[in-house]
């Protein structure tokens, strides 16, 4: 195997692995902050216990997100040095701002939150977790600004053989990030909501700590219904935007080989990438035009036509991403989202009727739905990143031009194997700990008495 292919595998594995932990951090930080705020405002002990219990799960997950994030940051230089040279003028900026504006805030105040229960006033302590929540969601913004430049380059000029920044503000208002950011963050909130609901359902089924898990479930349900509705809505508009900004990605996601007006949409298809046809498909007429343009007519360009246009523009080459996997990743994401939406609406109805806990099947469904948002998140990013192929920066640089020329295949293989092994072991440990904490339940953490600290540290003796 050559270094390029290995570097691609390494990037894929690290990114997918990293993003297993990030969405839960985004959403759960906010939920824990809400729990603690309710505790501060009402004085209800249950909410303090909730903040501690869910906070413990949050921390186990957070640690994994942080350490894999470090690899992400240094990856670009290690395996993709030519990419870093080509876009460093633009891409480095949001990464640096992320560290300065968000990551410092997040890490520092998380330390304050973990160790400050008996050192700070209640409201100041709650403020610490709000800062953590704010900072993680801010951090996502800066990372997505960087990623959006790869999807839809804006605010740049090609000069000195590289892309140089001409407008920082243009980067921040990249149309792509304006869809991608809410879509990603809301997906994170959905992930956290289903995480909380699934675990609460587990204990409600066993009649453990009923008051505690009813309240937890209710909080998860409210935030889950809101976020899943919004994530679907934003996703729809994002898709419409992609039709014009990355037509090849959308054409591949629909396996539309020929341009059509009006265009039907395939629900399922057997795809023959060699012959560039779909030998079998189940179609709904007009639907793709309607989804793309809110109208029953309108031409949706096909892969072949876009390929011809790109050859004119960028020279000979293959500009078609792996159609089958992009097509299916899109459908898996949508299907997982639809399932979550149905489940959330159904249980909202049951909850309002007061009948949720009489339906063990529904509660079980929640327990087994914990993986759903993870599947949706992963396949969504798969579609976004693989659908951009062969480009690393859309229209500007191809993946094979981006790889480090001085790193040998052997070196990449070594790091790939060790990282993957390490990730595998840590995933097992992580799940083991999460399950352990979940099964143990909230327990009775006593309110922490204020211990008087007598001995301060003096630097002058």
């Amino acid at each position, binding site marked *: 195997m050559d270094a390029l292919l290995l570097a691609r595998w390494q990037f894929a594995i690290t990114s997918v692995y990293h993003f297993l932990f990030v969405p839960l951090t985004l959403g759960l930080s906010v939920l824990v902050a809400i729990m603690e705020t309710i505790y501060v405002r009402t004085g209800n002990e249950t909410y303090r216990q909730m903040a501690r219990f869910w906070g413990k799960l949050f*921390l*186990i997950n957070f*640690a994994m997100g942080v*350490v894999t994030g*470090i*690899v992400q*940051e*240094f990856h670009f*230089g*290690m395996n993709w*040095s030519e990419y*870093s*040279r080509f*876009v*460093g*003028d*633009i891409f*480095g*900026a949001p*990464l*640096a*701002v992320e*560290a*300065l*504006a968000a*990551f*410092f805030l997040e*890490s*520092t*105040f998380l*330390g*304050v939150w973990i*160790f*400050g229960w*008996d*050192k*700070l006033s209640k409201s100041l302590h709650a403020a610490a977790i709000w800062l953590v929540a704010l900072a993680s969601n801010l951090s996502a913004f800066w990372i997505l600004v960087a990623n959006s430049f790869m999807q839809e380059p804006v605010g740049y000029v090609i000069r000195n053989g590289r892309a*140089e*920044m001409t407008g*920082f503000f243009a980067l921040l208002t990249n149309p792509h990030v304006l869809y991608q950011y809410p879509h990603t963050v809301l997906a994170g909130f959905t992930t956290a909501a289903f995480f909380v609901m699934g675990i609460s359902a587990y204990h409600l089924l066993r009649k453990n700590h009923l008051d505690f898990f009813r309240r937890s479930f209710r909080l998860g349900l409210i935030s889950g219904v809101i976020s899943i509705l919004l994530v679907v809505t934003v996703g729809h508009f994002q898709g419409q935007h992609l039709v014009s900004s990355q037509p090849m990605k959308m054409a591949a996601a629909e396996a539309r080989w020929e341009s059509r007006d009006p265009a039907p949409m395939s629900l399922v298809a057997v795809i023959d990438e060699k012959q560039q046809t779909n030998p079998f498909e189940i179609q709904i007429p007009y639907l793709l035009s309607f989804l793309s343009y809110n109208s029953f007519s309108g031409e949706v360009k096909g892969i072949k036509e876009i390929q011809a246009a790109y050859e004119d523009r960028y020279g000979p080459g293959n500009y078609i991403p792996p159609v089958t996997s992009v097509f299916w990743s899109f459908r898996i994401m949508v299907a997982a989202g639809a399932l979550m939406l149905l489940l959330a609406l159904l249980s909202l109805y049951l909850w309002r009727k007061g009948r949720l806990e009489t339906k063990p099947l529904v509660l079980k469904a929640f327990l087994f739905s914990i993986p759903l948002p993870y599947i949706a998140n992963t396949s969504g990013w798969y579609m976004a990143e693989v659908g951009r192929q062969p480009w690393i920066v859309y229209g500007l640089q191809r993946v094979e031009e981006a790889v*480090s020329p*001085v*790193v040998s295949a052997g*070196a990449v293989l070594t*790091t790939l194997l060790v990282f993957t092994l*390490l990730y595998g072991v*840590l995933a097992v*440990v*992580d799940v083991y*700990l999460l399950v*352990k*904490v979940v099964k143990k339940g909230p327990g009775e953490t006593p309110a*922490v008495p204020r*211990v008087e600290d007598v001995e*301060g*540290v*003096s*630097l*002058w*003796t």
Partner: protein
Amino acid sequence: MDLNVLWFVLITVLFIGYFFLEGFDYGVGILLPFLGKDDGERRVLINTIGPFWDGNEVWLLTAGGAIFAAFPHWYATLFSGFYLALFLMLVALIVRGVAFEFRSKDDRPSWRSLWDWLIFVGSLLPALLWGVAITNLIRGVPINGQMQYVGTFWHLLSPYTLAGGMTTLLLFTFHGALFLALKTRGELEERARRAAVLVGAVAAPALVLLVFLSYSQIGLAGRAGATVAFWGAVVLLLAAYWLSRTGRYGLAFVGNGLAIVFSTVAFFSALFPRVMVSSLYPQWSLTIYNASSSPYTLKVMTIVALTLVPVVLLYQGWTYWVFRHRVGKEHLEY
């Protein structure tokens, strides 16, 4: 001062922040198996850095991000060139980071001792590797005319760079021991004090040796600023050692902290205006001009950095104030 120079200074500042702050938490990690006799003591030791280590590590991430943003060629050449060394460091930082969080979540002794050893290794490796890395930047590595590193992993190891690694390792360990002498009490405090005196006695000659080697290895003689900073670091370290022997650990901590600051300044000023020296041909070295971002990007990043760095210092300083007390066994989170 043009922006390229300013960014070189800013990156130096970020590394100073990183070495000063994470320096002592690496030191605590390195001393963990030697000072903590039982689980309770090891928890106390870890908890002295509990609220801080993650925030301290962000100094490294910010330095990395700043190098990427301000000097993309430096970032690209360094990280692809020092590939395996960086990989080792990343593995160390991964296991160390999760170890702090995971160790307390299960109370089997074998579980705890496993993560404690990982904290030890995860602290030792970066403390050693940073010295190796920085001395390599300045001593010169094979970089060709296309700014590509053409050496191997073994090119990074030489007596001089290993001396660099040993020096950072010892400086950070001394820093950690002094920090513990301030943050623990009772028997642990006693042990930390003894460790400080012991490590300080080795750290001081190591730094002196490194400075002498630097004359022949990196042409220190022609660089007045770096020379002054180096000898300043030596004096401060000797002072810190003497202060620790006479029981003034607070001042010793400040002194050794300043020795770390001065050593960092010395290396970066010896490097300036280069950022990576080519051992093949001086003209192929990466400098703050040929490796930099465009003037526009530097300007944007300057505004961002000069606004945010003081704020970060302010709230990080505040957390050190909140957790200024000595740590005992009464309440432990990790």
